[in-house]
């Protein structure tokens, strides 16, 4: 994954140093040894090529069919932040959703939030709706499912597919201005907001 940054980047020198260390291998720290949250960002804009994410019809929790392309089209003006979750997921997904919950007020007119189920067989519209309700999702936070083949395909294209959904990893994608970024790890609210802020400012990555 190039380029790669860890979360805490201060001035440009330290950012440079971090980039160097990362380039040496993007070392993953044992989760328990951290006193602050770490994550990695990578630019995967090449995946936005039309041939790649096309033909992915999602079903919104209200039953409407929506093309992923169409959903991402709004990323021309506003970032679309999306995550893959499943409603029965115990440890990672609730924390992922909590992060969206924490920024949804600030993002009210500024971004679209999207959660896509990776368990379409189980996550019916009703289940997705009640999940949304539990997290107090506002109007611009939308929930989707789809048919199994589409959902598996989509995850494969985005390189996050796990045969067993219980091995689900925390990844957040942000699409904006013809770019697609992938964030591996769980962020704090502040980190998420400042990443979004930087993104909107210009091409940092």
């Amino acid at each position, binding site marked *: 994954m190039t380029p790669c940054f860890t979360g805490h980047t201060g001035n440009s020198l330290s950012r440079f140093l971090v980039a160097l260390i990362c380039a040496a291998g993007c070392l*993953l*720290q*044992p*989760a*328990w*040894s*951290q*006193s*602050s*949250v770490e994550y990695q960002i990578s630019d995967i804009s090449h995946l936005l090529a039309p041939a790649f994410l096309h033909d992915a019809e999602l079903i919104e929790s209200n039953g409407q069919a929506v093309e992923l392309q169409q959903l991402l089209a709004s990323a021309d003006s506003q970032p679309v932040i999306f995550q893959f979750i*499943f409603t*029965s*997921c*115990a*440890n*990672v997904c*609730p*924390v992922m959703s*909590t*992060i969206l*919950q*924490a920024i949804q007020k600030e993002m009210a007119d500024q971004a679209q939030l999207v959660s896509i189920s990776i*368990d379409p*067989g*189980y996550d019916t519209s009703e289940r997705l709706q009640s999940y949304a309700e*539990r*997290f107090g999702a506002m109007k611009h936070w939308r929930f989707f499912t789809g048919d*199994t083949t589409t959902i598996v395909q989509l995850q494969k294209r985005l390189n996050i597919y*796990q*045969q*067993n*959904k*219980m*091995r*689900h*990893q*925390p990844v957040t994608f942000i699409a904006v201005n013809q770019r697609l970024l992938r964030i591996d790890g*769980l*962020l*704090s*609210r*502040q980190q998420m907001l400042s990443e979004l802020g930087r993104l909107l400012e210009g091409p940092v990555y």
Partner: protein
Amino acid sequence: MCNRQQALIAGLFWCLSNTLPGADAELGERLYRQGIGVDGKPVKAIVQGDIEVDASLLSCASCHRNSGYGDAEGGEYVPPITAEVLFNDYTPERSHLFRNLYQDIQTAVTRASVHDIKQRRAYDRLSLKRALTEGIGSDGRTLSLQMPRFQLSDADIDALQSYLETLGKPEQGALAALGIDAETIHFATVFIPNEGLNDNTDYASKKQAIELVFSAYLKRKNLNTHAAQKKPDYSLGYKSDFVYTQKLWQLHKWELQGPATTWREQLDDHYAKQPVFAVLGGLGNDWHVVHQFCETRQLPCLFPNTALPVTSENGNYALYLSRGLSGEAQTAAEWLNTNDQIRHVVQLYRENSIGEHAARFLEAGLSSGDFNIKLIRVPDGVAANQEFLSSRLADKKQQAIIAWLNREDINQLPFYKHSILLGSASMAELWSHHQHQELSEPVKQISWIWPWAMPQQEPRRLYRVRAWMRSRWIPVVHEVEQFNTFFALDITDHAMYDILDRYSRDYFIELIERMTENSLNPGLYSAMSLGPGQRFAATHNRVIRLDNKTD
């Protein structure tokens, strides 16, 4: 204060709970499982350093799980916090590490966390409070920010502590009550004869076919265990450290008799005679009584062959392969609802528990739609043939016939030009007949509700399981029931391998939830999966014709 030696001598429970007069473990359990504080309100917490959440969204159990054994498999490593782990010093003793390594650890992060052996002191009231409220471990380390910092009152902490002291592995003496002896682990299976359904020769031959799978599996399993026990030093690695946890499997066949009202008592009697760790597989139409028994006893009951599982509520301990008839009725309802042409629905059903249940499920499933529903009951001893049907069936346009019949009926059914859809929950033979190309042309023209893998697209493991049976001289005469039984045994085998000596039924269920996925699919289903709280492993029904044509 208790030191470790005192704790060992006086008994961990007594010693620790002595320091907490009056704390309520039940309130602690509620806090642990639902995030509700002692005062009845949701507890607040901060996760990821700066995100405020209700603990009802992030209860202890959602991460550390009901068992307290945590989760080494998901994206983030969640450590075990059972009484034994939490209230003892944690030293780099190899068995601690290896126990964790046994689990199927996937990611670099979790692998690294497990390998980095922690050394920390046993938790006490003070250090537990600091861990939960400030995120500082008993060794002074700052815990990962994924572990929320909770706003807890002193009463909350007391309640949680009393509960955590009971969490996890039972004391040695209690193992027998879980069906575990020094050398043996006991399992049971349940057989319920069909009352008034198919003929009993059918039941007897299914039961016998299933029994052959059980005995072949246990024979192989116990031979392997004997071999491992004879050479305890067989492995240079850590596996041999755990040979003592390998026990012989013993299966108890619980055959119920008489009317359903007496089944519960029979089950209780069997259990009193010999407690078992879990109930595996089984055969019977209606599983309600067994379900209730399993739930009240908190006894895992895995994957029986039944058309009537309990679908109305989500149990904790009863796991099923599919939703049976209820799932098929739902598929039929969806099929009818998406078919704009159909206004009239005729339900043709046998006068028996399968037919009646199915018809009732579908009626309920269609209640919101705008259908004209007609019910035709086929009494016992009467054939559902041209003669019987022509007088009762008006040949209407926009009509679909949904039939819930016995296997013997299929060849009698006249051919209709309107859609006819057959449920197959009670006709597992259909799968085998299709596999062996023994279906007649008219039967192939019927549309079926098909709970299995699509013809010609069966998962490859089908051939492996068939070969397994063949090499043990097991006649495969009831493939579906036999393969389902194989699956129940196989997944239990995998789970017991991970459990080692951590005999917790909750942990067992959590392992089964994690392990039920396509790689253990015996080849019958297009996809299998479970997850926390999910109780039906293969729910994907299709409507198909076996001649590959569409209506």
